[in-house]
């Protein structure tokens, strides 16, 4: 086993695109669940809304990249309204039911073959991301490799990472600022005791709807960054497992805490990368034993990952719903 290689991979993962994209989606979920107590089980739907908003605008309507971003935001807001307006006046579980159902429906809708001209159906959309890399401020040559000590990045990825991380940190700081503003404190009050907040004249419904929209737009940005990095939009990448991974990340970091999305995402992806690399590099003896007993092979290692995500989410929600670093008082996950 090459421990140097495994550790190098693990550390380079921690600053990578996945960490950034999932952390951003988790920032959105953190607003919804961490601060407002909303059970959004369909964050991947917002990512898809952002991604398709961008891709369809550029590819089908032939408008510019900037307008594409605008439409990504608009689609996310529209989705939040569709999901939130009927459910946010009701008990918390209705939003959960509707969001989990809607995120899967969105996937079915965009891969519907009647939508082929617009969304590309199951083939998806490609060739919309070039303006991002041709942007005048991009200091990197997309095709060139850049070395930083042991890490080496393609110029293309480096540009995505630079933009993404700056955006992510700006978002986190904005959320931090926002949550100490009167708006944010009212939101937390609604999470803790909706009746009390309402008695003080706060329109809980509007606050929750705004939180759902804001978190959804941030999720939409995560989706846009993801597809810009890939250079294509594939409908089946927006599957529900993404949502549950985002949940695992948020609860790992601690819901309702400023930096928890980034911390959780780094821990999650470092663990996954470490585990996968170790399992793939096992010497023949233990590898053979694993293959014989639980049929672990190169093919189902990725399935093992999701089994662990599920188990982790189950155990975290049971024993440490406040996350690894959170305090129980702050995040009591109260019933409503």
């Amino acid at each position, binding site marked *: 086993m090459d421990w140097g290689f495994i550790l190098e991979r693990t550390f380079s993962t921690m600053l990578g695109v996945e960490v950034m994209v999932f952390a951003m989606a988790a920032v959105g979920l953190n607003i919804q669940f961490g601060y407002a*107590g909303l*059970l959004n089980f369909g964050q991947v739907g917002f990512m898809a809304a952002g991604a398709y908003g961008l891709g369809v605008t550029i590819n089908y309507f032939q408008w510019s990249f900037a307008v594409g971003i605008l439409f990504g935001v608009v689609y996310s807001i529209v989705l939040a309204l*569709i999901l939130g*307006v*009927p*459910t946010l*006046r*009701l*008990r*918390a*579980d*209705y939003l*959960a*039911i*509707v969001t*989990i*159902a*809607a995120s*899967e*429906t969105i996937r*079915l*809708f965009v891969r*519907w*073959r*009647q939508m082929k001209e617009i969304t590309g159906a*199951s083939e998806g959309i490609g060739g919309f991301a070039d303006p991002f890399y041709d942007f005048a401020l991009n200091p990197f040559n997309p095709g060139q490799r850049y070395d930083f000590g042991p890490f080496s990045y393609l110029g293309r990825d480096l540009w995505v990472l630079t933009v993404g991380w700056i955006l992510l940190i700006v978002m986190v700081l904005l959320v931090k600022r926002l949550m100490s503003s009167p708006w944010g404190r009212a939101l937390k009050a609604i999470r803790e005791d909706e009746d009390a907040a309402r008695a003080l004249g706060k329109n809980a419904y509007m606050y929750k709807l705004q939180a759902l929209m804001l978190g959804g737009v941030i999720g939409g940005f995560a989706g846009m960054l993801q597809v810009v990095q890939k250079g294509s939009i594939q409908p089946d990448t927006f599957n*529900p*497992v993404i949502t*549950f991974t985002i*949940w*695992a990340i948020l*609860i790992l970091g601690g819901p309702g805490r400023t930096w928890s999305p980034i911390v959780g995402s780094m821990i999650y992806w470092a663990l996954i990368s470490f585990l996968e690399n170790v399992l793939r590099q096992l010497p023949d003896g233990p590898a053979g034993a694993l293959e*014989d*007993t*639980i*049929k672990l*092979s*190169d*093919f*189902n290692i990725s*399935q*093992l990952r*999701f*089994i662990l*995500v*599920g*188990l*982790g*989410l*189950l*155990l*975290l*929600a*049971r024993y440490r*719903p406040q996350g690894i670093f959170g305090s129980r008082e702050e995040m*009591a*996950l*109260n*019933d*409503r």
Partner: protein
Amino acid sequence: MLLFALLAAIAGTFVGSLASAQTDDTTGELAIFGQLGYEDPESGEDVNAAGVTIEVDGVGSVVTDDLGEFRLVVPSAGDYAVTIDVETLPEGVNLRNPDANPLEASVSENRDRRVLFPLVFGEGVGSTAGDISFRRVAQLTAEGLKQGLYLAMAAIGLTLIFGTTGLVNFAHAELVTWGMLATYFFNFYGLAGIIGFLAPLPPPFGGGVNLVFAALLGMLSGAALGWFLNRFIFRGARRAGVSLIAQMVMTIGLSILLRYLFVYVFRGGPRSFGDFSAQRAVSLGPIELTPKDLVAMGLSVLILVAVASYLEMTRMGKAMRAVSDNRELAESTGIDVERVISLVWMSGAALAAMSGVFFGLDQIKWDFGFRILLLIFASVTLGGLGRPYGALLGALVVGLTINLSTLFIDAEVKNMIALLMMALILMFRPQGILGRAERIG
């Protein structure tokens, strides 16, 4: 030799021996192959489609030769997505079924895998939307009724668990899949057929059993799983005062845990039961249904009637409804609430398992439950969360509506109607069709 077999049996875990029971360990080059051709509409001759790009996800791509044949070596057995690049098809030629692209091909360890991409000259299967005839309406009604009945069994379990514990169980769909897969397992391997030294025993222990008996075992195993989940996961959580929201996140974790355990053990490809898999439909007036569908529909009606009379007439059924209405009040009248909850989990899971068996008559797949989760939720919401008769009615309405909706829209997106119904009912009548008007905010 006997000692060796015994040792192997002990060493081999459940998962390992199950997976190895399905495959032979022969080594050698494995490949995905096939031949592409279509009929020329003018001459009526078969034409080979040369120069078409076929891509196997994660492996590479290959171009068909002059005979339209292709062959691509894959590194090992497993599931692969095979995509045909429709841009490279000859002019005017299309896939007969554009939905079947990419195809999922599972390569077993001892055999090359042939994949078929039927091609046609001209347009593929068009949309059937907009074709309204008495025959179609009748057929779709029958199919909607069938789907509604099966859905009802899953939905009643979910709504009962919600009623007694306040918990929306997002892993309920996995209980449906569990019933399906467990029945498949008993159908082929029997009770203990995978444990090495027990395998030579006669059925039902060693060998597979008839589907009817296997379905009963599957239902029992569903009840066992329900009991287990309540006893070892959710009862502890309730006692430790874990909030309902955190419990819901737990069920989300449980759902993905179970789902990926299923695909880990049973692999990705679709399967079917050993009995009754290829039946010819019989005509009843304008309706065509297979005999197994008719029997399953009859059985599900019986089961639903039995559930209703249980809830109405027995002490335990009344206790269930009482706990569902008001837990504290029920507890103060001397009802053992924990016992009721345990029974509700067991019967709810058993009903879900049975619904999985009936759905499994058509197709068995590791993520089947998740794909109907939307429909189960829509049924429950339509009927009002926590109301068993509401769930029954809701399921029938959902089944009929989405099937009849294909008169007007593409079958591919019929499930979207269920989401639409759910949004509408929440907007205008959140207590559900049968629910009393009350504040649920």
